[in-house]
């Protein structure tokens, strides 16, 4: 039987009386990139702190590559972590920061030098930036140092706590690609905490959606986006039209999900669905978002930017074949 990279068994924790984590279980295959996705306060950062060893669970076990590390101190787990605020040592150079973990392990200085330079090459920090202290580096350069510092110790598990939340959108796209590339190159099992569904879907092999201290659904980004099992997951991963109804022949009382980009306005060759009145149109550059009233139901339609119907106009709205997903009746949360 293959050993999981990371395995969480019934992890429970609470700060005061209300449970922060209530029996969280998760299996992450070795070498996979998993994102813990959820709204603020759902317990995702607490979970990553438990995995890193900064908090001790009240119940449950953490297994890393088959070894129980629940009670091991952070420094004995061989995990690397990129903190949300990066937590770079401000009095050390970029090189010093990356060398820290190797020096703490007492490796020979020649090996430290060689591994630090190789890691800084891998994360793309230029030679003239390597002797600078974090205060003299840009946000993206600091991010590279933090990533290098976490990876140079060759961890069994890399943890990223909202690593891109402080970057502007352009830099975020760059760093997203870099993190994924380095993760693939090193093959390290990775766990990222994020509240950004796009970030999770773009980077992860697997996403675990959390809400109120529990994991509500685990799957690939595509599965969770297109075929979620609950309205919560459907709405959290993106804009969603959810209407009461069921597929003919199925159990009544369920809901139907159709994403705005799966609807078409005045489309040709698409089966007719209904006529509605445009309430609002918003321009986003790459696309437009149109709100259409179909009877007493409001539907969001994402369309091409060259078609922007004015409010008040009547339009024909239809769904592309195979894009309507039935949410299970007990999936609402």
């Amino acid at each position, binding site marked *: 039987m293959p050993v999981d990279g990371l395995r969480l068994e019934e992890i429970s924790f609470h700060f005061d009386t209300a449970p922060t984590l209530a029996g969280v279980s998760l299996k992450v295959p070795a070498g996979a990139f998993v994102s813990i996705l959820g709204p603020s306060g759902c317990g995702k950062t607490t979970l990553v702190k438990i995995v890193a060893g900064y908090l001790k669970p009240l119940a449950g076990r953490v297994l890393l590559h088959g070894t129980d590390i629940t009670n091991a*101190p952070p*420094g004995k787990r061989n995990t690397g972590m990129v903190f949300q*605020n990066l*937590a770079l040592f401000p009095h050390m150079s970029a090189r010093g920061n990356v060398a*820290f973990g190797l*020096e*703490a392990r007492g490796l020979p200085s020649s090996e430290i030098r060689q591994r630090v330079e190789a890691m800084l090459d891998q994360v793309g920090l230029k030679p003239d930036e390597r002797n600078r202290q974090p205060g003299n580096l840009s946000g993206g350069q600091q991010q590279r140092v933090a990533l290098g510092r976490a990876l140079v110790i060759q961890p069994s598990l890399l943890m990223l706590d909202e690593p891109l939340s402080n970057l502007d959108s352009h830099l975020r796209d760059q760093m997203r690609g870099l993190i994924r590339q380095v993760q693939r190159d090193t093959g390290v099992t990775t766990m990222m905490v994020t509240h950004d569904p796009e970030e999770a879907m773009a980077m992860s092999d697997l996403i675990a959606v959390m809400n109120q201290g529990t994991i509500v659904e685990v799957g690939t980004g595509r599965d969770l986006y297109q075929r979620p099992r609950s309205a919560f997951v459907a709405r959290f991963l993106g804009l969603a039209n959810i209407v009461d109804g069921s597929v003919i022949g199925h159990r009544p009382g369920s809901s139907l999900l159709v994403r705005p980009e799966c609807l078409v306005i005045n489309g040709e060759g698409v089966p007719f669905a209904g006529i509605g009145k445009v309430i609002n149109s918003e321009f986003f550059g790459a696309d437009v978002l149109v709100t259409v009233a179909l009877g007493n139901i409001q539907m969001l339609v994402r369309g091409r930017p060259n078609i922007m119907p004015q409010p008040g106009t009547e339009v024909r709205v239809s769904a592309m074949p195979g894009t309507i997903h039935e949410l299970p009746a007990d999936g609402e949360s």
Partner: protein
Amino acid sequence: MTLLRASIAILLPALLLVVGGTAAGAILTVRMSLHAPGAGAGLFEPGSVSLSSWASMGDAHHRGIVLTTILTGLGVSLLSTAIGALLAMLAAPFAGLRFMGVMVLILAPRLSGVLASLFGLQRLLPRGWIGSLIAETWLLVPYSTLILVIALRGIDPHLVPAARGLGASRWQVLRWIIWPLSLPAVALTLQLGWVWGFGAFLGPLFLGGPDQSTLAVEIHHEAFDLGRWPRAAAEGVVLMVLTASAMAAGSWRPRP
């Protein structure tokens, strides 16, 4: 520029007071040291110019006083910084009301009043240099601790977990993270310590032995017990030079 001008305008009276007051005090002290001592009840001979007060500054008695003053300054500096660092490390991790409680305990020597503290210490400690050193350290430790607590609490709370997670031991965290990041505050408390210690007065007065007088005590003795103001002023100038030299030495940093 408007903000800069406003800042200067606000700070100017305070700057004038500090610079003017210090300069005026220093000039008057130097001037006084150059007068001849007064006969009978007079403090000095008006209009006289004399180096007689300075002639005694190099004698064995004064050399001993200067040595005691320097040793007291260095001793108070090192002791108060070391104790302050330990107390700051104990207090810094607390939060909220607990932190307030710990700080009240640390600041207790200042809250109870200097004289009350010294009378208490007089009963507990032996008279002599060690007693006066402990008394002065006792008075200074709350300030040193405050400076160091502020420095420790200013360190990003994620740095220690980050270092521990990378495999650093507690000792390595202290040596590689806490120590270098609190070094400016340690330098400040050392400097405060020796400036405070050079001017040590109450501790040596209450607990010092007859042969371990400091310059501040000797100045008081010359001026108020013996009425020799020019000589007290000459000793005051020596104390000023000593303190200024120590501050200059403490502010020196090697070129990067």
